[in-house]
C-alpha cells in the first residue's frame, strides 16, 4: 500500500486512515477536499485535474517527511485524484495519526497548505459557459529561496 499517491479512481478514504492507525495513535485527522458546486457565484459543472504523476508523488512524500520531522510521532498518508471529478467527489485526502490530537490537527492543515504550494497538480474548472485552468500567478524563485 502506497502512503503517497496520485490515482485516477475514486478515493477510498478508509484506506488512508487505516494506513496511519497504530496502537500508539490516540488521534486521527482526515481531511478531504471536495468539488464544490459554487465558487464566487459561478456554478461549476465538473473539474478536471492533471498532474506530473511521478514528481507529484515524490513531493507528497517530501511533505510527509517534513511533517514527521516537525511533529514527531505523526504518521501520514495522502492521495490526490486526477481526471474528471464531479460535484462532491473527493480530490484530495490527508490522513494523519498522532499520539495526541494537537499535532494531528496542525500537521494535517500544514499538509494541505504545502500541497497547494509545491505539488505539480493542476485543476481545470468547467462551467456552463467556459473552462479555465486555475493557478495563482507566482514569480520565478530566486536562487536560495524556497520553491
Amino acid at each position: 500500500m502506497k502512503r503517497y499517491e496520485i490515482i485516477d479512481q475514486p478515493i477510498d478514504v478508509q484506506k488512508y486512515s487505516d494506513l496511519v492507525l497504530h496502537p500508539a495513535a490516540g488521534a486521527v485527522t482526515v481531511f478531504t477536499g471536495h468539488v464544490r458546486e459554487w465558487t464566487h457565484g459561478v456554478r461549476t459543472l465538473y473539474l478536471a485535474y492533471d498532474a506530473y504523476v511521478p514528481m507529484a508523488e515524490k513531493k507528497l512524500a517530501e511533505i510527509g517527511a517534513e511533517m514527521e520531522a516537525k511533529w514527531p510521532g505523526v504518521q501520514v498518508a495522502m492521495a490526490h485524484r486526477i481526471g474528471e471529478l464531479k460535484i462532491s467527489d473527493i480530490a484530495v485526502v490527508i490522513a494523519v495519526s498522532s499520539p495526541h490530537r494537537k499535532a494531528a490537527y496542525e500537521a494535517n492543515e500544514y499538509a494541505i497548505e504545502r500541497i497547494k504550494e509545491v505539488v505539480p497538480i493542476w485543476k481545470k474548472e468547467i462551467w456552463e459557459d467556459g473552462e479555465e485552468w486555475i493557478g495563482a500567478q507566482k514569480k520565478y524563485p530566486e536562487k536560495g529561496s524556497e520553491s
Partner: protein
Amino acid sequence: MITVHYFARLRELTGKGEESLDRAPMTVEELLNWAEETYPGFGKETIHVAVNEEYALKDDVIQAGDVCAFIPPVSGG
C-alpha cells in the same frame, strides 16, 4: 536529447504531452526562452521548470538525458 513534458494549460497550448529537444546543454532560462518563442502565449514568467522531478533555478544547466517539465502555477487540493 532533453525530454520536456507539458501539463494542463501548456498541454493544450502546445498540443502535446511531451517532446524531445536536441539542444543540450542549455540553462533553464534558455529552455524557457525557447518555449516562449516556439509557442506564442507560453507565459514563461509564471512557469517553473522541473529537471529530473525537482524544481530548478534559472541558472541551472540541463544536460542531455535530463527529463524536464514545465510547471505552471499549481492548483491541487
